[in-house]
């Protein structure tokens, strides 16, 4: 129309890079405070591993909220269920786990992860149907009923598996560290980082390159308009809920192996961090969630070393600081 202005400039997507400087700044600052480069490297790897695990868990939750404004405190239940299912599968596979063969070790882990994700996916479907669907659009009821669901699941796990503390040992090939020079990099942490990056990559590809992914991003921004274009947002939401629950299950397996001991309360512990992460990242933003997870984990690991007394408060402090800078989180999602 009246837009014959300049010779067509190719306008690419704008990128907001400022938040990406945060982890670099925090890591750099920690480097100065810690002094020892090897300690710093060890802590940084620990932070990245923890960050990736938290991201795997949080990524589904941020989309669940973004798409239908559902606040799901029950997300932690799937973390716990994932851990217990993996334990149940790894029990009979103990010879594979103890074998001195990376292939057998990974095969056992892979089977455990598949079982955990399938199980939590199916249970996520039931959870959505029975508990979440009746309270669409009602935040207070969502909080109460999903918390109730979490408690029920925890108690059921106690009944089924017993209330004692469980252990899940790492497979032989993933114990210990690889030495690079005089820096020891724990193998399992490297694996956790790899898995987290893989999940992030697959999610990015899905969200950016597939129609379903575009619909999810569009729905997070304006669910009503997605419906007006002829798509059933609730089906999309159920799919996201199932995928998010399965990812929480995967995160539960990773986390339980990382800690090596756990109880049914494992989910409740992590989910606090997870909520902080999705608020920092910007509700509904997967990229923000990724960054937020790394930031929270860095703060947790660096402060645990530098000032153990404030370690617990560090993620809250981080959240408050970031919200003062960007009240909607690092990558706010435009809402109608």
């Amino acid at each position, binding site marked *: *129309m*009246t*837009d*014959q202005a300049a010779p*067509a*400039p*190719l*306008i*690419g*997507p*704008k990128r907001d890079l400022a938040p990406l400087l945060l982890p670099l700044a925090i890591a750099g600052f920690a480097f100065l405070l810690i002094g020892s480069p090897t300690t710093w490297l060890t802590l940084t790897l620990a932070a990245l591993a923890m960050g990736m695990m938290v991201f795997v868990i949080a990524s589904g939750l941020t989309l669940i909220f973004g798409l239908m404004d559902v606040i799901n405190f029950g997300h932690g239940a799937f973390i716990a269920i994932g851990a217990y299912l993996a334990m149940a599968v790894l029990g009979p596979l103990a010879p594979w786990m103890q074998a001195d063969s990376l292939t057998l070790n990974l095969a056992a882990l892979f089977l455990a992860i598949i079982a955990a994700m399938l199980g939590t996916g199916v249970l996520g479907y039931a959870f959505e149907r029975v508990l979440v669907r009746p309270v669409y659009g009602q935040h207070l009821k969502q909080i109460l009923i999903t918390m109730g669901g979490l408690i029920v699941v925890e108690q059921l796990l106690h009944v089924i598996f017993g209330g004692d503390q469980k252990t899940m040992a790492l497979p032989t090939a993933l114990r210990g560290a690889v030495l690079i020079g005089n820096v020891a990099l724990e193998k399992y942490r490297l694996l956790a980082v790899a898995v987290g990056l893989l999940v992030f990559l697959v999610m990015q590809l899905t969200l950016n390159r597939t*129609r379903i992914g*575009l*619909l999810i*991003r*569009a729905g997070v*921004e*304006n669910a*009503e*308009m*997605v*419906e*007006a*274009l*002829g*798509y*059933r*947002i609730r089906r999309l939401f159920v799919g996201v809920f199932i995928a998010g629950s399965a990812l929480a299950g995967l995160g539960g397996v990773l986390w339980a192996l990382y800690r090596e001991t756990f109880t049914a309360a494992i989910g409740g512990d992590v989910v606090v961090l997870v909520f902080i992460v999705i608020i920092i990242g910007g509700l509904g933003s997967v990229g923000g969630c990724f960054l937020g997870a790394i930031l929270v984990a860095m703060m947790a690991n660096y402060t645990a070393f530098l000032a153990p007394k404030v370690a617990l408060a560090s993620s809250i402090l981080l959240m408050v600081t970031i919200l003062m800078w960007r009240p909607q989180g690092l990558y706010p*999602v*435009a809402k*109608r």
Partner: protein
Amino acid sequence: MADPLLRLEGVHTHIGQYHILQGVDFTVPEGGITMLLGRNGAGKTTALRTIMGLWRPSRGAITFDGRAIGGVATPDIALAGIAYVPETMAVFSDLTVEENLILAARSGPIDPRRRDWIFSFFPAMQRFWHAPAGVLSGGQKQMLAISRAIIEKRRLILIDEPTKGLAPAIIEGMISAFRELKHEATILMVEQNFRFAAALGDTVAVMDDGHIVHRGKMADLAADEKLQTRLLGLALDQHQ
């Protein structure tokens, strides 16, 4: 006379405790452009949202192409062949122009001829094809919202105030776009800009306070300044 494409009979809509539409009756004949006019707050947007299933009518019947669509879910109404350009435009700002249109073209890949046809009257869509819709100006967002409604052929297009906040030159361009569009789709358009409405409209319905207070030919209303003043509250020259 042939059956109208869309018919509203005694439609009531409540939003929360508010009784907004209080028995709305009008029809949209197949082909051409029907204008839905009325003062601010008359209930025009509510009427379009009710047709689209975004509000559920509490009473009355809505018939589209012989099929009752009152109370039907929004996606099914869309699939029946109705496209919607909301007052807020509701472009997906995080998605590129292309991605917005990919979603709107729900039956498959975008038809390149159709895309070029849209470029012919909205060249900005071509220039910003790979840009996120969030960077578009208000007028360009409006063009994208309309493009989404026409990237595939639909029976009926509901458009809420397409000229809102647009510069006069852009409005001129839009008039020619809609003149071309009305050859293939029926349009129900809400408009505040009377000159624009008079230039495009074939039939007209005027709303006030949740009721239809006038129905007729657009040309007749355009020729009757007294009636315009009574129905819309403003004389034509003041209204620009």
